[in-house]
């Protein structure tokens, strides 16, 4: 019996769904056919009129879950704090929106909500009675670019520790563990937008030195002078700004948070021919989680889809299967050793 469990985020198959090559049922069937037992679901993506879907939509959800014996593990929830152009939502408005999301998760048979990064800490305490009543845990996503060093993330963590409830925790996106910048992102920027090779080399070199663009920018209060000199076009700037959405942290950054971690997004940019993820060392990360005794889910979240050059084939299905094969085999290897 494996302790670390795997699932697939339907985020991974967004282009198949958007362009109607796969319906929600096709996705359930595809995953079930490939021995995937759990899913991560974005109600705002594949359930119309969420968080208030129609009775028919809910009946269809129930049918799919039971037909394909799929466990809906977690709902990815967003908070539209900027739903109005001229102001941010108040605390009361934010809390009310999230109560509806908690009720929907409960109705869908989901016990865990991923709150998108930057959700304000002030929502947690007023939501706790609802989390308990509906048995839904709320976990803030720690995502590269909006990670542990960002004020709103720190505020949330402080409040989480103060309240110390089993219904409040964190979701970690493995994009904070990039050893290399995703090659698909650099290629897209270079070939489609015209980012220069010099700028890409500069950023690749930052990763090669064991750090990441975000830390370099923070150290220099902006782009370092030698990088500034290289930035000659809008495409160079876009790339340099976007590159700070990939972090290169040591696994040990999680040490103090392990008791609060409810779930992982195993981010996937590109499976290579040698069946590894190009940027993230999943063997190393799973080894770390195994040693820490992590017993939750890790969810394949393919994001290379947004970097496919126009005219090139979308490979969401192939990428998801290759990544699932990788992480399952690593988990089996790690946990198999304990049989003896």
């Amino acid at each position: 019996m494996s302790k670390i469990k795997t699932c697939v985020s339907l985020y991974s198959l967004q282009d198949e769904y958007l362009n109607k090559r796969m319906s929600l049922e096709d996705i359930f069937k595809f995953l079930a056919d490939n021995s995937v037992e759990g899913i991560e679901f974005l109600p705002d993506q594949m359930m119309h009129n969420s968080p208030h879907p129609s009775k028919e939509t809910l009946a269809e959800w129930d049918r799919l879950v039971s037909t394909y014996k799929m466990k809906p593990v977690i709902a990815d929830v967003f908070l539209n704090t900027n739903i109005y152009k001229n102001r941010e939502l108040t605390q009361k408005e934010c809390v009310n929106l999230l109560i509806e999301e908690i009720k929907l998760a409960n109705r869908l048979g989901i016990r865990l909500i991923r709150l998108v990064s930057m959700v304000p800490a002030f929502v947690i305490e007023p939501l706790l009675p609802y989390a308990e009543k509906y048995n839904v845990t709320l976990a803030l996503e720690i995502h590269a670019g909006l990670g542990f060093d960002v004020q709103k993330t720190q505020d949330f963590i402080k409040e989480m520790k103060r309240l110390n409830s089993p219904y409040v925790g964190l979701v970690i996106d493995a994009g904070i563990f990039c050893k290399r910048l995703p090659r698909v992102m650099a290629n897209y920027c270079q070939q489609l937008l015209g980012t220069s090779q010099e700028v890409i080399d500069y950023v690749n070199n930052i990763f090669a030195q064991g750090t990441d663009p975000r830390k370099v920018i923070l150290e220099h209060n902006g782009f370092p002078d030698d990088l500034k000199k290289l930035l000659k076009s809008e495409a160079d700037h876009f790339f340099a700004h976007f590159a700070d959405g990939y972090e290169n942290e040591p696994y040990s950054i999680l040490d103090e948070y392990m008791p609060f971690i409810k779930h992982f997004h195993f981010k996937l940019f590109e499976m290579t021919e040698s069946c590894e993820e190009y940027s993230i060392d999943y063997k190393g990360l799973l080894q770390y989680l195994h040693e820490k005794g992590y017993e939750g889910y890790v969810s394949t979240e393919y994001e290379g889809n947004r970097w496919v050059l126009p005219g090139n084939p979308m490979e969401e299905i192939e990428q998801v299967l290759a990544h699932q094969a990788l992480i399952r085999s690593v988990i089996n290897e790690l946990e198999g050793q304990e049989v003896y």
Partner: protein
Amino acid sequence: MFDNNVFLENTCKNIEEASKITGFELKTNITYYRGIPLSMVNDIRVEVDGENVPRESILCSVDGVDWFTLDEMETVTSYKWEYGEPLTVRARKDGGLAKGTHEVALDVVVRTAYIPVPLAGRKARTVEIA
């Protein structure tokens, strides 16, 4: 990044109302990976043969029933632009697009919940009006 979602192929055509051509329309998917209320659409721009369609001539609808100008859309929170369901963008223009070939470009800009800059996408297509 989301450019591929913008301006669906073969959707640009003139609109005929009461046997009069009153403008043209086209369809687009969202430049995001989830559905959002129409109030979170920051901007829609249509360009024909290098010229911008005036902002006030643009109308949008998610259901083909109720139509909103861009200024009106700022307060439209109960109509959701669903992921995977195209938005119809109409430009009011007497006579619509003239017969022949046009270069039509569409820009879609939406606000997200957590990324400080809006997400934009653009696609230009050569359109043949019969």
